[in-house]
């Protein structure tokens, strides 16, 4: 156990990095696609719609395989970690698109009217009035997205990223203790998820409207 502990901790760090980076990418993509759906012209709206339905309509594992194994065929050569971050980011982005869009729609329509009546442009109104209110509504559902995302990072073991799941599998051979190895990985996942959950709760309290 002591012998493998450092490797598991290192792998936990990789998992955490994957989760954080892919979540940031997903948030960016989600914000862009949600804006495109709500405020874009027909072209942007259609692109966003296709993105969301394709990603949500196919398994994440297939998306990772296409990117990592299929990528080189069309000139995209990524190391496993980058492919993991990008693949997971694109995947979660589709779910975040709907979360962000839902939060924006949930802001009372009178808010936009009041802002426009004062002379603000649509863009100014979205930035100063709608988004700050939507952001507060987004924290909790985004927390749910992120929870799912941390668990989904386990998939990248299939494209040989040395994350927690991959590491657990690797040490089964030398320790002959699959039970302990997977329990250890599971515990570390739970630590990451619990910590993230605490951060989300704290954030949710902080942004609550007075």
């Amino acid at each position, binding site marked *: 156990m002591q012998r493998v502990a450092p490797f598991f901790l290192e792998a936990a760090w990789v998992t955490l990095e994957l989760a954080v980076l892919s979540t940031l990418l997903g948030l960016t993509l989600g914000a862009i696609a949600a804006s495109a759906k709500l405020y874009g012209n027909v072209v942007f709206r259609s692109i966003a719609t296709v993105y969301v339905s394709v990603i949500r309509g196919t398994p994440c594992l297939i998306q990772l395989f296409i990117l990592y194994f299929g990528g080189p065929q069309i000139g995209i050569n990524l190391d496993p970690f980058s492919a993991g971050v990008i693949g997971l980011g694109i995947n979660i982005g589709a779910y975040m698109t709907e979360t962000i869009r839902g939060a924006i729609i949930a802001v009372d329509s009178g808010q936009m*009217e*009041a802002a426009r*009546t*004062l002379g603000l442009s*649509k863009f100014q109104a979205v930035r*100063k009035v709608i988004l*700050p*209110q939507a952001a*507060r509504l987004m924290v909790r559902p985004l927390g749910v997205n992120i929870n799912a995302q941390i668990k989904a990072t386990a998939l990248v073991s299939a494209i040989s990223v040395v994350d927690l799941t991959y590491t657990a599998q690797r040490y089964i051979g030398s320790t002959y203790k699959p039970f302990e190895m997977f329990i250890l990985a599971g515990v570390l996942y739970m630590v990451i998820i619990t910590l993230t959950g605490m951060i989300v709760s704290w954030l949710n309290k902080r942004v609550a*409207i007075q």
Partner: protein
Amino acid sequence: MTDAKPFVEIRQARKCYGDLEVLKNISLKVNKGQIIAIIGPSGSGKSTLLRAINDLDPLTDGEVWLEDTQVNKKLPHKQYENHINKVRQNIGMVFQHFNLFPHLSVRENITLAPKMLKGISDAEADRLAEEQLEHVGLSDRIDYYPSQLSGGQKQRVAIARALAMQPKVMLFDEATSALDPELVEEVNLVMKRLAEEHMTMIIVTHEMAFAESVADRILFMDGGVVVEEGPPEQLFRAPKHERTKEFLAKHLRANALAPA
């Protein structure tokens, strides 16, 4: 007075939602400093007409003018947006449900638009907020958030927010309908004070007594047309049209029954 150049003018306004024609060829002239009250049954098109003035609900046909500017002039999309954003700075609007920005303090609600659109400094903005709040009697609430205010206070802040843009005309869409009866008067008082200061105002209201006391002219709308209009004493005391009489009878009876 009657031959003065109109300050706000609506020419042959038509508005359709699909097959439903909710405004049928309405024309209206409002002089500078005049106060118009629009009354009429639910669904008669009062809000639609009011919201056409700042193009919140664009007309299907017809023109809206504010002084020498056509509010709803036909322009390519981008140019139109620039145009309407400028025009709207001159037209204050107060809504039934206040529509204060809940994430901003009272001060920030008032200063948001002047800061963004007029580029005034923080110090000037603060002074503006203080000035406007004093006007509506809420100086001590400057650092409160909307959720910490009563309905009447919210509406007074909403009026202050609109006035902070120094509008040429103010539109009120049932500003007191969402308020508890005991909070109506404080908002009415603010509006009366504005009237005394000769603000040009167009007021949609269900409160006949208030309309009578504050307006220079009353418009009675029904079914998308202005059925009858005139000075309050004439329209309330000696209505000419059958529909006006019926509406007033119903309302006066309802008011008489309501607890004072």
